Structures are given as structure tokens and as C-alpha cells.
């Protein structure tokens, strides 16, 4: 059982009682890690935003079922992963589906209204554009479990136990192995950059 005084658990317990301001605080706090995870799961920025929003809507809709048996983020990332996997499955079943296809019921309306991004990728980002693209590409080529595990590691503060829960209750050894495999594959693909130290250049 998780400490009920954990700030996230305390917030979620307020959300469970229907506190909308606590809910808004949770959304603000976790929208970035959820977007990071969902986007790198499905590799589509607009769809990722819709799914990330749906993650939080699901949190609200199922709030009464929340029990602080584990950390709030475990619950949140599990919802995010499940919705991301649903999207991957949907695309597998309907590969021809495209955002460019007009909706039959309201063709004159834009498909979705997306505001300017609040955190555009800065030109002087820590990684050069090419290296970043290589890393993203290598990450996208990983099997889903390895990718999710590495992404959760990247978020920081997510323990192996939590990752095991998010990945469907697998063992700790399996988590370690999955993470190690993912790293080994990435290391293999990114070896030239790791050796040259290019990742250190600004």
C-alpha cells in the first residue's frame, strides 16, 4: 500500500471525491510525461495529443475505482500505455486510415484544432537534429515493451517495480532484461555517436 500522504496520491484521492481543481493540478503536472510516452509509442503528434487527453479523461471517469494500492503514476502510465496500444492495434487493423481522409458527417470542419505548441523544440537543443532523429528512429524500431520500459526509465522517478506493473505485472528480472535488451540494441545502433562523443556537443 502506498503512503496516502504521497502528494500525487493525495491529489488523486481528492480527484476521487470529485475535486476538479485537484484534477486540473494533476493534468498540469503529468501532461508532459504522458505526452512523451504516448507520442513515442505511436509516433504521431496529433493523434498522441488526442490520446493523451483521453488518458486524463479516463482518469476522471474511472476515478471512483482508484485505490492507492500503488503509485499514482503506475496507474496513469498503465492507462496511457493501454490507450497507446489500442491505437497501434487499430492502425494494424485499418492501415489505410489516415487523418487526411475527410469525415463524412462534417467535411467542412477541420479534423482537429491544435494550438501552438507550448514547448517548441529549441534550435540549440542538447542533441543535434541528426543525432536526435537517429535516436528517435532507433527507439521507434524497438519492440513496444522495450521502448515503453526505456521511456519510463527516462521519465525519472519510475522504479523497476512500477515499470513491471505498467507492463502488465511482469517480474523484476523480466523488466531488467527488457531494459538491458533495449539498451543493447540502441547501443549497437548508436555506437558511432557514442564513441565519437557527438552526444556531448551542443
Amino acid at each position: 500500500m502506498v503512503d496516502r500522504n504521497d502528494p500525487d496520491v493525495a491529489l488523486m484521492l481528492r480527484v476521487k471525491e470529485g475535486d476538479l481543481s485537484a484534477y486540473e493540478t494533476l493534468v498540469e503536472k503529468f501532461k508532459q510525461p504522458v505526452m512523451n510516452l504516448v507520442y513515442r509509442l505511436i509516433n504521431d503528434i496529433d493523434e498522441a495529443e488526442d490520446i493523451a487527453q483521453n488518458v486524463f479523461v479516463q482518469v476522471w471517469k474511472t476515478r471512483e475505482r482508484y485505490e492507492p494500492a500503488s503509485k499514482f503514476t503506475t496507474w496513469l502510465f498503465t492507462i496511457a500505455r493501454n490507450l497507446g496500444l489500442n491505437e497501434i492495434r487499430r492502425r494494424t487493423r485499418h492501415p489505410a486510415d489516415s487523418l487526411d481522409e475527410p469525415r463524412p458527417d462534417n467535411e467542412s470542419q477541420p479534423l482537429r484544432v491544435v494550438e501552438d505548441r507550448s514547448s517548441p523544440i529549441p534550435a540549440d537543443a542538447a542533441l543535434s537534429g541528426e543525432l536526435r532523429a537517429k535516436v528517435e528512429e532507433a527507439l521507434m524500431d524497438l519492440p513496444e515493451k522495450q521502448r515503453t520500459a526505456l521511456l519510463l526509465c527516462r521519465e525519472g522517478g519510475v522504479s523497476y517495480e512500477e515499470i513491471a506493473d505498467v507492463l502488465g505485472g511482469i517480474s523484476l528480472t523480466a523488466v531488467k532484461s527488457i531494459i538491458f535488451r533495449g539498451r543493447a540494441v540502441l547501443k549497437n545502433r548508436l555506437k558511432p555517436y557514442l564513441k565519437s562523443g557527438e552526444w556531448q556537443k551542443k
Partner: protein
Amino acid sequence: MNQSEFDNLLQTAIERDLTDGELARLQRWLAANPTDQAEWEALDHLLASLPDTPVATNFTARVLDEVRRAETAHPALDQAWWQRLLSPQFRPIQIAAAATLAMVLGDVGYQSHLKQSRAEMAAAVAAIAEFTPGFLADFEAIEAIAQADPIDEELWAALK
């Protein structure tokens, strides 16, 4: 473990899950070899350096709008579960429940009726059984008359 074994183990990790023992050997090797450890750390740094995915400025507002819309459409969320079951969204379940209840009540009534009929029938059979000996005696006498020889018509006429 030497460098060659370490490289082989890395290759194995690409191909399959490692065992507890293999993972422990790798971790021991990394702890003892700063060069390899630095490469792993570089990899972690690369992943950590990936920029955050851009989030729309109105993300939270849109989520809250969606939640408020859902609340307006289904205000019953704050009600008890049994109250929610009475809302129109559960109409098919309500109809199915009513039909099931009607069937159960009908069956109970029918079974009760059958039970009563059986009791009445048993009472009637018992009452008939009390008359059976006398009734059978009369029956045998009548049957004997029916099976007697035909009347001698000439004798009958003479007797008249």
C-alpha cells in the same frame, strides 16, 4: 568475464532475454570497467537529452472541457451505483431485468399452481380408493350378468 565474453553477452541480450545470472555478470563487468560503463551512461544521457514532446497550450483546458461535457451528459457519476442503474443510459438492462423478474414471478406462480393441483388430485384419488371394494363387487356382478348364456326365448315365452 573478459571483453570478448562481455561483447558476446551483449549480442545475446539483443537476441533473447537474459537470465538473472547473466544480468548479474554484466552488471559486475560494467562496475569494474569504466570505459564500458561510460558508454552505457552515454546512452542513458542520449535518451535523457531527447526533447520533450510539444504539448498544446490549451491541453489542460481541452481536457477540462471534455470532462465537463461528460459530466453534463452523464451527471449520474456522483450518484450511488444503484441510482445510476435507473438512468436512461441503462434502459436495455432495465428492460432485461424487468423481463427476467416477470419470468421468475410467472414461473413461481405456475409451480405453485401445479403444486396445488397435485394436492387436490391426490385427495381425490384417496377418496375414490375408499369406495373401491364395494364398487368392484358390483362391477363383477354386472359383468357376470353380461357374460351369462343368452335367454332361452321359448322357455321364457312358456313361463309367461
